[in-house]
């Protein structure tokens, strides 16, 4: 396989990284909102959040993407495939991240929340200044894990027409008939990206204050 082909794959992997990163970040914001809904004590909000999380965790991402891709035009919403891909991945990862965060929020010491209340923090202030930072710190390993899962899952957005790493490999296979070399190379690139994220994640985990004592 020529360097030319490999460099095309590398270029496409930038799209994979871009889509995954944006989706993880949007998913994180959505997950925090879902957690707020869960902690709000307002029943309809809690039920809505539970429904959302259960649906997106209980159905394959491929089906979610196919549904989204066909549902939006029917609803009269026209979006480029990049936006559809990001929306689909964000909604899915939000559900998984909310589930991860739930454990984190349970790990926030009660005393800290009570002290914040006593100090006159509003519920929103307590949530954003006390609960969220601690929950995020506690679930950092799970977040890194989720980032790797999304990098792999982003291969599915090829079905909504976005040319990322997997789709580029598919396109090149169609014109060169070298599936073995191309898919193996694509796999290698995914592996390198994921190992990098795993290593960086461990570094971050150890460097941030509040690392668990060994």
């Amino acid at each position, binding site marked *: 396989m020529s360097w030319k082909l490999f460099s095309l794959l590398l270029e496409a992997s930038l799209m994979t990284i871009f889509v995954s990163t944006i989706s993880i970040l949007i998913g994180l914001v959505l997950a925090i909102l879902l957690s707020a809904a869960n902690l709000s004590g307002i029943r309809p909000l809690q039920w809505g959040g539970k429904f959302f999380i*259960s*649906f997106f*965790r*209980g*159905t*394959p*991402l*491929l*089906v*979610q993407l*196919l*549904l989204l891709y*066909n*549902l939006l035009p*029917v*609803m009269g919403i026209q979006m480029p495939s990049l936006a559809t891909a990001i929306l689909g991945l964000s909604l899915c990862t939000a559900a998984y991240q909310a589930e991860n965060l739930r454990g984190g929020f349970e790990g926030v010491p009660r005393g800290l929340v009570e002290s914040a209340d006593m100090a006159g923090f509003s519920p929103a202030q307590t949530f954003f200044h006390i609960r969220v930072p601690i929950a995020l710190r506690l679930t950092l390993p799970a977040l890194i894990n989720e980032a*790797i899962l999304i990098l*792999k*899952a*982003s*291969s*599915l957005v*090829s*079905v909504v027409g976005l040319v990322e790493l*997997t789709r580029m*490999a*598919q396109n090149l*296979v169609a014109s060169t008939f070298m*599936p*073995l070399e191309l*898919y*193996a190379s*694509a*796999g290698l690139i*995914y*592996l390198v990206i*994921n*190992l990098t994220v795993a290593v960086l994640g461990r570094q971050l985990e150890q460097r941030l204050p509040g690392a668990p004592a060994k």
Partner: protein
Amino acid sequence: MNFDLNVILSKQDELLYGIAVTIFVWVVGTLASAALGFVIATARRYGGVLVDRALAVPVEVIRGTPFLVQLFLLYFGGPYIGLSLDALPAGLLALSIYGSAYFSEIFRAGYQSVPPGHVEAAETLGFTRGQVIRVILLPEMALLVLPPSVNMAIILLKETALLSLITVPEMTMTASAIGSQEYAFVEAMLLLALTYWILVELAGLLGRLAEKKLSRYRLAKA
């Protein structure tokens, strides 16, 4: 938008066939994954450092790459190295290899959770290695490996949807085909999502029941 599920539901024979294929692939794939994963974990535990390191590589590669890429590599690349498989066996094989890497890690953690003293005690009593695994290790780790195994089974159920991309006639492919033919793709996908959802919830429920059944074997906290 005309929302009409009847168009889809009138094709119930095809839909049920698709659901049957999904369940077949899922059950066989999960059992094969667990069996192969157990073999890998056992080989890594008893095969010495070299086997352990040699097996760590494929496990990490499989865990670090998307299932879709593995599937395409096997199905489209396989014929170039003399491995021409039909869609269904290719899908089953890919799913089993993929799942086995994750199951091997589940069993590895399970092996590590058993107190070494129990194994040593059994060895002192003259248990063979097979007996130690069968009588001591497996029962003791069963409770610990059950929840992640159920979780993995659910992940594999959702991954079976990808087999539609190599034309395995499971329920995602069936629903897509019917949806396109009948110009009711959204309805087909909604129904499809609902079916997966029900299957996933059922699998989770079964897992929790099994956990309850097993929990009476929980080891007393030391």
